[in-house]
């Protein structure tokens, strides 16, 4: 078995998933408790202990793609933890599982035509179907271009691959790589900057980073005093009010 074909569940386990996270993964994949030990030696460069959440929609391959992608879009640095450590992959999984991901409030009748970009999205796929098809297409393109799946690429190659998709230059079979990347980026940013109740923005990391105070009860009492001065407060989220 070459490095490129080691099952991802072993990567995740090797990356240090323990306790509840491991149990959740094991249940979801049918992994037997004896297998993880054998995989201890292979440490994935992308998986993260903070991702120890059960998945609603994504399978392990898709999840590994998302983790690898959001960690390039939002890399760990002195400003914030990585995208996956902030919960962006969890956010995306839950959004794909939501009514929105299933195509709620979307016009889905045919006939279907390609249309102009000005006419917007015209595919029969729901957002979840589109996103998952996009991951498969991205991995297929990655294998063709780099010889392995996206999440197995070195970080500099992953950045290159994402830029190629962003420019629409990655040749996907049925989808526009530009459109897939745009959706990936939008969802990642929503997860990073949205309220933590959706699974992203763990510990309100992005709000702390920005100096965004979160939800106020009111600002009418401080707005004059702080005009042209930064108002600093411990950010409050929906859960903090509840």
């Amino acid at each position, binding site marked *: 078995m070459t490095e490129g074909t080691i099952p991802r569940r072993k990567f995740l386990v090797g990356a240090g998933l323990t306790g509840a996270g491991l149990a959740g993964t094991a249940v979801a994949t049918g992994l037997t408790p004896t297998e993880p030990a054998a995989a201890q030696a292979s440490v994935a460069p992308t998986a993260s202990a903070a991702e120890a959440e059960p998945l609603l929609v994504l399978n392990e391959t898709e999840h590994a793609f998302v983790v690898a992608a959001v960690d390039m879009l939002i890399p760990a640095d002195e400003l914030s933890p990585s995208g996956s450590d902030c919960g962006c992959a969890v956010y995306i999984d839950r959004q794909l599982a939501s009514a*929105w991901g299933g195509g709620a409030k979307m*016009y889905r*009748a045919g006939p279907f*035509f390609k249309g102009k970009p000005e006419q917007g*999205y015209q595919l029969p796929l729901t957002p979840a179907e589109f996103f998952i098809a996009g991951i498969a297409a991205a991995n297929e393109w990655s294998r063709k271009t780099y010889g392995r799946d996206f999440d197995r690429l070195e970080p500099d190659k992953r950045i290159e691959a994402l830029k190629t998709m962003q420019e629409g230059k990655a040749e996907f079979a049925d989808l526009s790589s530009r459109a897939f990347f745009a959706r990936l980026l939008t969802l990642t940013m929503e997860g990073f900057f949205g309220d933590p109740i959706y699974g992203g923005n763990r510990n309100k990391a992005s709000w702390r980073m*920005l100096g965004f105070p979160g939800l106020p009860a009111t*600002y009418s009492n401080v707005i004059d005093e702080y*005009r042209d001065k930064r108002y600093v407060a411990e950010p409050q989220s929906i859960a903090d009010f509840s």
Partner: protein
Amino acid sequence: MVTRLKDVDAVTVGLGWTGAIMARELTKAGLNVVSLERGPDRIPGEDFILPAVRDEVKYGARLELMMDNSIDTLTFRNFGNERALPIRRIGAFLPGEGVGGSGIHWGALHWRNLPSDFRIRSALTERYGAKSIPDDMTIQDWPVSYDEIEPFYDKFDKICGVSGKAGNLRGKKVDGGNIFEGPRSDEYPNQPIKTSNAGLMFGAAAKSLGYHPFPAPVAIASNAYVNADGVTLGACEYCGYCNRIACETNAKASANSTILPNLRLDPKFELRTRCFVTKLNYDKAAKKVVSVTYTDMKTGEEYEQPAGIVLLTAFVFSNVQHLLLAGIGEPYDPTTGKGMVGKNYAYQFEAGASAFFENKELNPYWGSAGMSTIIDDFNGENFDHGGLGFFGGGYINCNTAAAPPISGRTVPHGTPEWGSEWKHATVKWYHHAARFNTQGSVYANRANYMDLDPTYKDVLGRPLIRLTYNPPDNEFKMSAYLLTKVEAIIKAMNPSTYDMHPRPKTFTVVPYQSTHNTGGTIMGADPKSSVVNRYLQAWDAHNLFIQGASVFPQQHGYNPTGTLGALAYWSANAITSRYLKNPGPLVHA
């Protein structure tokens, strides 16, 4: 089988701003009114509450309060020779869903048109000569003057608790207000809401260039306020969660917070939610709409509701669709210019800029959507268009307010969209970015219109509205001119860096731009040039009164809600004072 219901005096098709105004005014006059609203109910004290309303994912990104495109949408193409395709998820514009309609999530900028806007073709003819107006610019005078409608503007101001500063009080110009506005019979109900730091900087720069800055007029109460209907509105909390979101404190006016509290208590009023009106049943010989047919979306049952007066109070697209489906009036034909239904669609032409001030804290986390400082020096006929090669204009504003982090992160052009460099730029500039906008007019063009789509249907099998729209050249020139003014003001503000954001040459329905859609059932002096008369009464059905921005003959450089609310009160007044006594045409063709 369709169940025929008992007659009512009046029915509203939809219950947003205009539906609530009409229902309130007509029940006060003693009529029994039923409102048929296809969406859910929305009740401030139950649905607009902390902390749930302060959720940018749910309301900002997932558009919780917006129309359900699985039920209904429209198709779109830029030009008449293209195939229109359905807007599968709304983007450029966001009509609301449910009781209160778009008037819940709006930014609450609350304007009046200029007196000259109401007679724009005459004004341009007098100033520049009849030949100066291009043949394809299908603008026309409104059949009502500013002076006639002013008392109704004033009435709507006092329902909404509008905050602002008068610049023309009974003809006297007042420094610090908008000196270009038409004479107001009264000061704004509330003093202006607070000004942002960027707004102060913009105001000083605009003044240094000889312009006339003033605080935005907003339907957001700066103080607790008892409105003209006796309803108490809260004071703005500057919470920063405003656009696309309902107001928890009832400072941002909606029909739900200002009119419905009393209307719901009136036994003469009945609200039926999730009732989707599918058809106006038209008696062409009698020139009346005898009833409306609707489907109860909870059960699928169909009902026919007969009514003495039918108030078409839906969004622009639905108003036009109802007329086309019922065969009321003649559909507009862009090749011959004949027919009026669907004519003169216009869509607010907004373009803007962003500027960055390294050493200024601009407090982007708070404020309200409409909180901005404005100049109106380049709107309508407030400036001379001689030699400019275009007509129209718009107000220019600056704000930083209410920029929650999913949507409100502005970075200089050329910054990567992701990665460490993006993150550093985002942190560097979040507190220091000011945004500018131009609220450009759209002087109607003969190529832009609405008709029925030949292919696509809504969930109940009705043909969708097909929108054919691309901004005319006139509007691109107008916008380019406004942006030169914006740029000059930005330079006078001495920014660290700035970017201009002109609009692309072809309109796209994807990114949000504005919800200001107008036209399609335009008002005018006679049936040859309009669908409704000066009282919003359909020429072809005297008991049908069509409300909302679909009656605007063209779009001026202001947000439409102030004017459509005033027109609703004006129309209601005509119904209660004249039509009820003598049902029939209020204007003879």
